[in-house]
């Protein structure tokens, strides 16, 4: 898939994030938008998956360790065909299968998550399971840069490095902001790359919003043998919606009607630009 198509899908994923959190009147748009291009690249290009057969045994696995950005994951899954895009407006509503954080009843979701620091351990277990079993699959997990303040992340990293799980790809969404503010002011996890290197990971830094950079990074991860890979993607929280960009306040707040209209107008404009680019 070329970059233009990926950009188009990513823009649709962003629209789904804005639409679903607006409908829910709650949820986490900031980190969903910063990771929208990564979600898109994984589900439209990188992973061996089949929306018609979400449980197929040899599929690549994805664990959203930063589970609060479920709106981003759900939008990617819906746009990829795992379930109807229209269902995104049921997010967080009583009786909806689209729970506030991922659970096992959502087509395409491989692991429940949301309690920070736990998803990466499950991903590591899956990667080990692939090595011990007959099915040869890769495992991807996306963590927040605030999330890596959780000690369990480093327990999991130590184990993955020790076991040389080269079928594991950890992605850290480095958007620089957490609920209480800038991550380096709250409790700095920097340097993120050197920490993973110290845990025997192959580490790649990449621009989270550049599909050439993501393509190169994931190819390098796949080609890396004998150790797991961590890709630190440098992103903009709220990317794509001007008034949400780089604002910690949009971590866990939904757009009101006016903000929704503005956000969708901006994303429509981006869609027009992508369409022009394609001609």
């Amino acid at each position, binding site marked *: 898939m070329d970059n233009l198509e990926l950009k188009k899908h990513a823009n649709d994923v962003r629209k789904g994030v804005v639409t679903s959190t607006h409908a829910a009147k709650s949820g986490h748009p900031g980190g969903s938008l910063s990771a929208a291009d990564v979600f898109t690249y994984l589900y439209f290009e990188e992973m061996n998956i089949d929306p018609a057969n979400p449980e197929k045994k040899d599929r690549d696995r994805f664990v959203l360790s930063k589970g609060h950005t479920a709106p981003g994951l759900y939008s990617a899954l819906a746009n990829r065909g795992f379930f109807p895009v229209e269902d995104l407006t049921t997010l967080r509503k009583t009786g909806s299968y689209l729970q506030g954080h991922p659970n096992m009843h959502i087509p395409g979701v491989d692991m429940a998550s949301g*309690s920070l620091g736990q998803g990466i351990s499950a991903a590591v*277990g899956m990667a*080990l399971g*692939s090595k*011990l*079993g007959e099915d040869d699959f890769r495992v991807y997990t996306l963590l927040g840069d605030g999330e890596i303040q959780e000690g*369990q992340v480093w327990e999991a990293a130590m*184990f993955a490095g020790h076991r040389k799980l080269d079928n594991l790809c950890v992605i850290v969404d480095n958007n620089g902001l957490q609920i209480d503010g800038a991550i380096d002011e709250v409790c700095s996890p920097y340097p993120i790359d050197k920490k993973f290197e110290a845990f025997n990971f192959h580490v790649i830094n990449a621009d989270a919003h550049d599909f050439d950079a993501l393509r190169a990074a994931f190819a390098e991860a796949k080609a890396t043998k004998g150790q797991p890979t961590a890709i630190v993607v440098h992103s903009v929280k709220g990317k794509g919606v001007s008034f949400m960009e780089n604002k910690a306040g949009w971590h866990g707040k939904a757009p009101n009607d006016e903000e929704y209209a503005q956000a969708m107008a901006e994303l429509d404009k981006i869609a027009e630009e992508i369409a022009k680019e394609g001609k």
Partner: protein
Amino acid sequence: MADVKKIATRESYGNALKDLAEEFPNLVVLDADLAEATKTGIFKKAYPDRHIDCGIAECNMMGIAAGLSLAGKIPFCSSFAMFAAGRAFEQVRNSIGYPHLNVKIGATHAGISVGEDGASHQCNEDLALMRTIPGMVVMCPSDDIEAKAAVRAALEYEGPVYIRFGRAAVPVINDKPDYKFEIGKGTVVREGTDVTIVATGICVDSAIGAAEKLAADGINAEVINICTIKPLDKDIIINSAKKTGKVVTVEEHSVIGGLGSAVCDALAESLPTPVKKIGMQDVFGQSGPANELIALYGLDAQGVYSSVKEFLA
């Protein structure tokens, strides 16, 4: 009555894992640097490639087990009860319980019979913690035979299971020809009419001893062994309470949240009955030889006997 053979249920656990490895080819065993103490080392020796030491990182171990189960394995993960149910509670709840994964937790060194290590390592809260997780099966076997049967039943069952094992050697009490194990079923080990003693784990032996002493005083106690704390065999307890009208619970666990509470819940809803709960009375344990501590906290046959006498007086 059984012979005097004594085996710690943690030893039974390690042996059962090894014995069942061929029959359950997807079984893998995880430990957190305690393989010698939890006795998963017995399995490790026979099946080194299927034993995964996670290092001293119990929370991560629970997550690894979750991931392994999602890759088709049946993980049995082990640590001391304090760390498996205590330290890693939220991981068990959110990474195993909520997604209802096929993960088994074999927690050893539960209760005060840990002995000399003292209160920091004596987990008297694990049954309470594990009971609160929706869909979690919680078992506490009383001897070698029941411990092995519980491990097999856990492997045959699809879903999360917590089994509590002890450090100290305990007598074999279930070596009866008609012994049959089923998750969720209690056993009447002694029939009686005057009082019901419901016990779990190593306290079943104390309850049997107490019943013998009570018999000498002309009190005919019924003794029920509850291995599965959840789902609880409510019928066996209610039917006995109908007959005796008085119930005593005995557990090597806090009287808050464990067997005693489960029995009270069942009786309060169906057949309000006076209950005396024997266990750790909202206190921490201390260092000392296991048998001395069991006696000190009133969990041996003499202690149970005295409490029942007081209750009936």
